[in-house]
Each structure stands twice: as C-alpha cells, then as structure tokens.
C-alpha cells in the first residue's frame, strides 16, 4: 500500500540530522561541472549555514574598530585631532575607512553578503514551509517502540475507540492530526509547533525589513544641527543650519517651512555634594509655527521630549552661553553690536569665542573666555567653577592685524599669526574697556543662554520600528515554540486487550516530547483498574 514507503521514509532518524529543520548541506565542491555548476555551487556555499556563521563572525569583528577609533559621523573634530596627532598612520587608516567604519565598503560588503546569504536561505525555506503548512503530518512509523521516546500501555477499550479518543485529545490541544491504518494497525499522527518555523522565517524577513527601513531613512531623511540664542529664531532653510546632512535622495527644497523662536532657556544644576555642578534639568520654552502664516504654538522642549513640528523633530542636545558685546571705534561710532555664541569647553561651561570686526580701522578682533562662575587660579588661569551664571565674567584679548576672513571662515576660531595683541582685560556685565592702542571701546552688555538643537526627519523610522517588533516576535516564536510529532498506534493483542503504543519525536533542538506523551497517555482510556 501507498503508506508503506512513506511511512518508512518519514520515520525520522533519532540522530541530529533528523532533529534539525535546516536544509541539508553539501560540503563537497562541484565535480566537473561547467560554469552553471560553479555558480550553483557558489550560491549553495553562500547560502549555507556555515557561511552565514562566518559572515556573522566577520560582522562582529568588523564593528569593533568603530568603537575604538573616532568616527566622522559622530565626532568630526576628534577625527581631525587624531589625523593631526598621527601623521604617519592616520592617512593610511583613513584610506582603510577606519574613521567611517559603518559607511565603509568592507563593512557594507559583509552585511550585504550576509543578507544575500539570508535571502538565499530563507526564501527556499519559506516555500517549503508554506507547502508543509498545507500538508497533513506524515504517517506513523511502523515500529513506534524504536523511537527514543515512547510509551506502551494497555486499554480495555477497542483500538478504534482508543484512536478516536487520542485524536480528540490531540485536537483539543490544537495538534494537527491525521489518521490512517496500515498492515500493523490503525494510527493517529499529529504534529504541533509549526509557529517555530513561521517565527524563524518572520524574524529573518523582518531583519531584511529593518535593513530596507534604514536605507529609506538615510536616503530620504535629513538631519541638521543648529544653535539658537534665547530671543532669537530659526527658520527651516538650509542656510540657517550650522551643519546640514541631507539624505542622498532628499532634496533641500523639501524642508518643511516651519520656524521657531527660543523664548527662554532654563537649566538647573546640583549644588553641593560629590556631584556638585551636575546638570539636573534643561528646559527650553519654544514658540513654533508650522508655516509662516500658521498660529504660533508655545511648548517646552526637554532632553527626552523633542519638539514635533510638521513631520520634523527638533531635539535639545546641548546649551551654552552667548555674551553680548558693543564695540565703538575711536569716533564713538558703533562698529559691532551682537550676541556671540561661545562654545563650552568643560562641564562648568568655561566657554570660548571670537569677535571679528573687519570694517574698522585698524581691523579688530577679540578672543574671549566666558565664565559663568568666574574663578582664577595660578596654574589654570581663569576658569569657571560652576555651570550656572553665579558670577559671570569675560576675559578678553584684543588683537589687530589681518583677520584673513576669506581663508579662515570659522566663526569660533581666530588665527593670530601675523596679528598683534593689543591688550587683555577682564569684564563683568555692564563694564567697558577702551583698548589704548586702537582706540576701540568694548562694552560687555550682558549674556543670554543658547540651546543647541538637532533637527531630524527620518521616514524610515516607523517602518524600522514595525520591522523590529516583528523581528522580536518572530525570534520569540522561533526560540520558544517546540516543534514535535506524536504518533499513536492501537492494536488488539492475542489476549483480547488493546495494546496502545505512543511515541513522539522532538523536531527542534533540546525539545522533549516526554510531557506531551504523558499528557496524551493520561487522556487515553486506561487499563481496567481491577486486579
């Protein structure tokens, strides 16, 4: 009968090969095959588990240098410092891509190969799995007693009755059940835990989804950084950004026309204790408009609470101080009046900045240190001893000479080569100082705080989240669900009683069917309780 060969073939080996749901691997190379054979062999190698394992290895190792060396995408100044300090090896390492590991060709090569290998492995398995899902479980092996996990019991009920009850019990526990009979006896075959392979495939496909979502985000999204002084505003155009990195396919003209002003900034610091000066809260009060004509909305932006406006998120990532200076020339005419961002250099906001005035005679520049809580030390010179503005002061050095604005556009640095220092002075808010040699009068009018904001739009964000959640779900199913088969055979023995054989096979690693068999046996009609 038809069941014969199938039954024997379906009796899985108790060995490891029978337990794995992975496709068999052929480690041997092609034998005398043409180019097609080689291609097929290469594809089979690439999609083998062994290759996937090696690629996973490589991916982990390749990720390490990115945590050891400074990376351009995160900390450009640190990369430049590293290149300056290591003139011999630096450029060579740069050519290897060690400062842009995650964008480098070799890192991409590893993960692209890994994903090709993944697709090559997962797609055929998906087809197989879909086919399996529509098929009934394989028939019972002839000799259930040969399986590593089996039980034998006797019952008073008829074999048919026992099998019917087994079928019912298995169905009630949501097993997929098939019945049949062969030369040996009638049987019930059942299988459960298909969700394991479903989850496995879902997980791997979701990983592909994450990759696509990341790609979409980096192609169509953008990110930028901008410093906004209290009382000033920001309109979403490229020219207003201090740093702007659009995705390759994101047009700069696609920026939503929102604008915002920073109304107030408030920071709290710990006073006293071992963590004196540690920040405790930052709060920026912001008024934003979706479009130039829209109604203004006032919100509070905090570190974990970004501003959301027309599909763009604006994050508070830092802050600092911006002193206001007025500079008059010899004749008393105002040649400069502005609030200048000074960049913080340490946790107590010792901040440095530069004022450059080209259109005055002679050209004039200030190099300054702003100290929110001024202190002075013979070793360190002027420094700030606390981040809040308890005792604000600026220490200024005045310079004259060629400012070279055309060659050094950096607004935070002054190249003093070829310039002459014409005086130094400490000022508190409201104080003024006349530089004797040039006649310029510098007034330190006061200061405001500024907020550093990151602006970002990432259209791949939501897809990435959905794919990640699916990945976790699939992973949980594939690692926690056990796939197993059980079979029941019932036949009449010579003495008239019914011999019931129950056996099972776990089809996933380290799963056991002992519990299933016990439950099943308990649900079957037992032997006559009498002596």
């Amino acid at each position, binding site marked *: 009968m038809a069941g014969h060969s199938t039954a024997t073939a379906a009796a899985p080996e108790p060995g490891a090969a029978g337990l794995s749901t992975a496709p068999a691997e052929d480690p041997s190379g092609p034998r005398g095959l043409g180019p097609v054979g080689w291609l097929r062999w290469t594809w089979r190698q690439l999609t083998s*588990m062994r290759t996937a394992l090696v690629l996973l290895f490589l991916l982990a190792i390749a990720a390490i240098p990115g945590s050891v060396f400074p*990376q351009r995408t995160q900390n450009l100044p640190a990369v430049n410092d590293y290149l300056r300090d290591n003139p011999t090896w630096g450029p060579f390492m740069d050519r290897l891509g060690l400062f842009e590991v995650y964008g480098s060709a070799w890192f991409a090569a590893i993960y692209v190969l890994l994903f090709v290998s993944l697709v090559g492995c997962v797609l055929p398995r998906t087809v197989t799995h879909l086919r399996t899902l529509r098929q009934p479980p394989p028939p019972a092996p002839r000799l259930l007693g040969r399986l*590593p996990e089996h039980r034998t019991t006797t019952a008073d009920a008829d074999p048919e009755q026992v099998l019917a009850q087994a079928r019912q019990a298995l169905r009630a526990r949501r097993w997929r059940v098939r019945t049949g009979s062969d030369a040996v006896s009638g049987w019930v075959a059942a299988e459960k835990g298909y969700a394991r392979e479903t989850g496995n495939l879902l997980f791997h496909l979701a990983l592909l989804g994450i990759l696509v979502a990341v790609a979409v985000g980096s192609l169509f999204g953008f990110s930028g950084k901008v410093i906004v002084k209290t009382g000033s505003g920001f309109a979403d155009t490229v020219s207003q950004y201090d740093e702007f990195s659009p995705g390759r396919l994101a047009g700069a003209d696609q920026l939503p026309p929102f604008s915002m002003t920073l109304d107030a900034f408030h920071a709290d610091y710990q006073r006293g204790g071992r963590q004196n000066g540690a920040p405790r809260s930052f709060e920026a009060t912001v008024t934003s408009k979706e479009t130039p004509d829209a109604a203004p909305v006032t919100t509070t932006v*905090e570190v*974990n609470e970004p501003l959301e406006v027309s599909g763009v998120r604006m994050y508070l990532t830092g802050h600092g101080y911006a002193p206001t200076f007025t500079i008059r020339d010899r004749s008393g005419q105002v040649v400069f009046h502005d609030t200048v961002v000074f960049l913080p250099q340490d946790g107590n906001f010792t901040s440095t900045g530069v004022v450059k005035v080209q259109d005055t005679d002679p050209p004039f520049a200030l190099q300054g240190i702003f100290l929110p809580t001024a202190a002075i030390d013979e070793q360190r010179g002027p420094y700030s001893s606390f981040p809040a503005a308890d005792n604000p002061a600026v220490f200024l050095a005045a310079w004259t000479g060629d400012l070279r604005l055309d060659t050094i556009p950096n607004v935070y640095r002054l190249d003093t080569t070829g310039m002459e220092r014409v005086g130094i002075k400490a000022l508190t808010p409201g104080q003024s100082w006349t530089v004797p040699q040039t006649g310029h009068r510098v007034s330190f009018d006061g200061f405001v705080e500024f907020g550093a904001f990151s602006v970002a739009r990432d259209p791949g964000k939501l897809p990435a989240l959905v794919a990640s959640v699916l990945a976790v779900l699939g*992973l949980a199913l594939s690692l926690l669900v056990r796939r197993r088969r059980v079979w029941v055979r019932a036949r009449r023995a010579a003495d008239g*009683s019914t011999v019931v054989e129950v056996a099972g096979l776990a089809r996933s690693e380290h799963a056991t069917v002992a519990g299933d068999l016990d439950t099943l046996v308990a649900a079957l009609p037992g032997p006559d309780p009498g002596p």
Partner: protein
Amino acid sequence: MPVDLTLAQLSNELVYASMAAYACALVAFAACLAARPGRALEPAAAPAGALAAQGEGGVGTLTRVTSGPPAPPAPPASPGRRAGNIGLALTWLATLLLGGGVLLRGLSVSRPPFGNMYEFSIASALAISAAFLVLSLRRDLRFLGLFVTLPVLLTLGLAITVLYTDAEQLMPALQSYWLVIHVTLATICGGALCVAAALTVLYLVVDVGERRTRAGRAFRLAPLVDRLPSAARLDALSYRVTAFTFPLWTFTIIAGAIWAEAAWSRYWGWDPKEVWAFITWVAYAAYLHARATAGWKGRRAAYLGLVAFACFLFNYYGVNIFFSGLHSYSGL
C-alpha cells in the same frame, strides 16, 4: 528632590548584609558539591529498566511502563543535599536583602535605581541571583549554586569598592520612563546570560572529563565532573537559558533605540555602547546558528557562547571605563 540619607545608608547596609549571606551561601554550596555523591554512586536506572523488561514480556500486568529516560530516583537525604538546601535558603535570604537594598536606593532618591554604575552593578547582581533562583524552582540546580554566588559576590564587591557612588539625582538625559524599561531589561538579560555562561563553563569541563574517561585517561578535575550533571544536560540547560534571553536582549536593544530616538534625535548612531550591544547580539546569534551547524555543535558552539558573554561583559565594564560616548553615566 532631596536625597534621603537615612534610606541611602540603610540601602548600603542591606547590600553589605546580602554579601554576608551570599558568602555563607557560597560556603554551603561548596560543601554541597564536596559532599554530593558522585554520579557513579547514585542509584542507576535499574528500577526503570526492570519495569521495561516486565512490559516487554507482555505479561498482562497493568503497569504503565516507561522506557524513555528513567525517572530520577528519589535522592537519599545526604549531608550534601542538606548543605545544598541551606545554600539555597541563604541565597533566597541574600536575594531578598539585596532586593531591599536596590529598592531603598531608589526610594532614597525617589527615582529608579539605575543612575550610575554602582546602581547598575547591584541590580545586575540581583538579576544573576534571581535568574538562578527562578531556574532552581523547577529543577535541582544546587550544583550550580557555587558558580552563581561567586560572580554575584564579585559583582557586588566591585560595586561597593571601585564603583561606589553616593545616591544623587539623575542627569536630564536619564529622566525618562525608558530608563526603567531599557535598563531593567538589560539587567535581567545580564543575570540570565551570566547563569548561562556559568553552565557553559561547567559543560566544557564536564565534556573534557567525559571524553577523557571514555578514552581511559586521567582528568584532574574528575572529582568535580563526578559531582556535576552530564555534559548533555548542562549544554541543554545553558542553551535553553540563552535561547530564552536572546529575544529579550533583542528587545532591550530595540527599547534602547526607541529611547535614543527621543533623546538623541536618531535611533541608531553607532555610539560605543550601541556598537558593543550590536556585537554582543551578533555573537549570540552566531552561537545560536552554530548549534544548528554541522561541525560547530558542542564545544565550538560553547566557546562562541562564552565569547558572546565576554562581549556582554565588555559592553558593561569596558565601554563604560575605556570609551567615551553618549552612554557616559557610570559616575566614575
């Protein structure tokens, strides 16, 4: 919010008390291992075998016959067993004390106790010990007690000596409910993975021992091997714990990414901590794949599992100490 110094002090005292209890538990578990009868001395599977023989004889007995793995024979009450029970009881006590310490630490500053490396460390020690106790609810893990209380004590020792930081408020970046989700998950994963790693080390030792015994060669750790479960059982147990934890670790990373998106404007930015979380994830993925790959099963997969745990440890200690990045909350 002011710091309640009384509660903070009480928390420290509870942590010390738990260390004393863990130390006693460690001694008890060591005694348990030393006194435990070797595998050779345990009653063999004879009773079950005898039943099977009866069944096959087809004599019309009404016995339900088991011929799968023999049911574990009722172990005789031995001094080793008693020591193991004392160890377990002490571990429960120590875990409750430590749990109190972690709780009071949080209450003293009215925030989750995950603000710096000292707090992460005591929470991790709690997680290791809790993972062990939860696992031991369903199976006899007294043999493992020594190898779990040891890392717990080391973690706590390092925490109170090197990593100690006074109870203070959180910096703004940490003021988010994701702190509770992300860090609690990471801590639970750390605890479970540590238990899995301890099992893997024992598996490797027992595996060598079993091979040597089969080959008829001497093995210096043979007395220890005799007192431990079979290599297959250790391997299976460590795999199960890892397989359970891996989805959790994946979710930890995703929760971190969601938080990163809210705090730093991007969900993934290759910050050193993110890089090493990724490396750890890939290493555990490699371990899980290796177990299904011919030629990698067994010892080689176990080594991979240990490499993966080393990556996890490096992500905790190494990245906090050697690298500067956005996850700079160690308080060191």
